[in-house]
């Protein structure tokens, strides 16, 4: 694995000074750059700001604004109370949380084990097995055969169908394996001579040395499971098993009422979501990502991921 220097740290600890030979840009160039950078940052952050603000606004403020609230105008948690007090959205949050926790644990465990199992250059049959892993990059099995396979295993409409088909990401496996291979072999050899089993070496030597990369891979799996839409869309008919992303699509994007979506569910079709409720669902869908983002970000800038593909 080629470890790439942190992209942001090109000039190291030197102060933000221009090199002597570098000409000062004109005022117009400087202004253009500032405007451009501000516009880019706003393009990302503005929608998030509006969504969060609207979800926290009372209904009167939304009516006054005629839609999304751009300027703070009152504060209300009513939307969150409505969706989190039982009902379809609450259930989908629980489903997504459960699938994310179990899936991440499962995927990370399998990936660590296989990455270590394939990390010794001279081990038995590691070449054909590695080839099997790498080949998955080149040719996907296709949607229809995958659907039929899941169906044949009797996994349609099961939570397992949200985890098993995409449990092992070859990319993560290869990244982790490259990392393991860079750990000095002498440490492991001496443990082997002392009679340590492979499982013990993995647990007491290799893993403690690879905490950061393992954490990043777990977080990547976690974000993947939380965001997963495809498997649930394809394999789940029963909307009581839907994860949050499917609720987000039906309830918020398409605005279709779902039976049992709110506590006030007396109408046959369920309540039509108000704008504040919609935005609250969006916020709940982004929140976990925003929470783990600083941890992921801290590590991927260090080039843990880049360059490992060719390892």
């Amino acid at each position, binding site marked *: 694995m080629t470890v790439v220097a942190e992209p942001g740290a090109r000039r190291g600890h030197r102060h*933000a000074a221009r090199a002597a030979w570098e000409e000062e840009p004109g005022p117009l160039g400087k202004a253009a*750059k500032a405007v451009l950078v501000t516009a880019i*940052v706003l393009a990302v952050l503005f929608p998030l700001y509006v969504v969060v603000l609207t979800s926290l606004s009372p209904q009167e403020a939304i009516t006054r604004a005629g839609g999304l609230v751009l300027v703070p105008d009152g504060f209300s948690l009513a939307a969150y109370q409505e969706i989190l007090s039982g009902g379809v959205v609450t259930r989908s949050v629980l489903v997504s949380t459960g699938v994310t926790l179990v899936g991440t644990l499962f995927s990370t465990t*399998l990936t660590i*084990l296989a990455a270590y199992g394939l990390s010794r250059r001279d081990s038995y049959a590691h070449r054909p097995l590695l080839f099997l892993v790498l080949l998955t990059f080149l040719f996907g099995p*296709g949607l229809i*055969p995958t*659907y039929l396979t899941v169906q044949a295993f009797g996994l349609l409409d099961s939570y397992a169908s949200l985890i098993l088909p995409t449990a*092992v990401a070859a990319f993560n496996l290869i990244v982790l394996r490259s990392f393991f291979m860079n750990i000095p072999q002498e440490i492991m050899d001496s443990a082997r001579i002392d009679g340590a089993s492979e499982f013990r070496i993995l647990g007491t030597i290799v893993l403690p040395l690879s905490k950061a990369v393992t954490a990043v891979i777990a977080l990547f799996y976690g974000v993947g499971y939380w965001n997963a839409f495809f498997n649930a869309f394809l394999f789940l008919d029963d909307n009581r098993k839907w994860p949050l992303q499917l609720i987000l699509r039906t309830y918020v994007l398409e605005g279709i009422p779902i039976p049992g979506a709110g506590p006030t569910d007396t109408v046959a079709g369920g309540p039509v979501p108000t704008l504040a409720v919609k935005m609250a669902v969006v916020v709940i869908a982004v929140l976990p990502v925003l929470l783990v983002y600083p941890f992921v970000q801290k590590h991927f800038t260090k080039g843990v991921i880049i360059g490992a593909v060719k390892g």
Partner: protein
Amino acid sequence: MDTDTTATRAPGAEAERSGAPGPGPSPSPRERRRVDRRRRLRRDWPLLLMTAPAILVLGAFHYLPLLGNVIAFQDYSPFVGILNSPFVGFDNFQRLFGDPAFWNATLNTLYITAFQLLFYFPVPILLALLVNSLLSARVRLFIQSVVYLPHFFSWVLVITLFQQMLGGAGALNSFLRQQGLTPIDVMTNPDTFVLLVTAEGIWKDAGWGMIIFLAALSTVNQNLYEAAAVDGAGRWRRMWHVTLPALVPVIVLLLIMRLGDALSVGFEQFLLQRGAVGADASEVLDTYVYYEGVVNGDFAYAGAAGLFKGVVGLLLVLGANKVAHLLGEEGVYSRR
């Protein structure tokens, strides 16, 4: 592995040349390799045990479905099953190639790929050059953190945000209405759909795509810039003659990967907007396969479409990589 086998082969070959396995303790080379293999198996079985679960998952959900592609050559019926459905040769493909809806999906896919190559592909490069030109490390890190973020959002979320900003009841159109202007139709207009998906793609992933270019930029020898400046090269000439050459290998690599993926433009993004925009503009190969197969239940036919896409995609990857080798670039994989 290599060292082991060559080590055993060398003395073995000698023994072979000197005649049959002598009376000594040295067994025939083949036998010795077998013994060696058995020894390694005895030593390495814990490693194999560790690898097994992941390989099982890949086997069950990647390689088994891969075999399932035979339904493309069958008159498949779910009630009869894969094993007993009759083979019909290339009938499904014949029907596929005569279907205007299939060609519509293929053309849409290629059109979107071409459009994105022109208008999406350069964005991360420009973004990286912009960020790299910022002097303050703190500002640079802040911008990186901000623009990487949307990569970690799901497509449902991204499209919901776009709908809230640009949709019929969204922020842009309520603003236009308040100003007494005519609202513009962005989210449901088939004619501008390609612009919309490209904008969504840029918003979500252009920042993330920048990482690899920033990494390449960080490897440029700073003395080259100084030398060029001393030789009288201005800002733009330095960018052309020093910066860009450093980016070329990465650009070629990503270009190959994108070309190899010419037939996939993403599934969720299109599926989610197909209802609003209509199939004419938004049907791509992946959604076509989904609707024909899972929705209409025509599994064999959709399987044929999927297999066609897979095989052509594979050929494109191999072809693009070949071209890269001819150009003297390393490509996605090399023949080491």
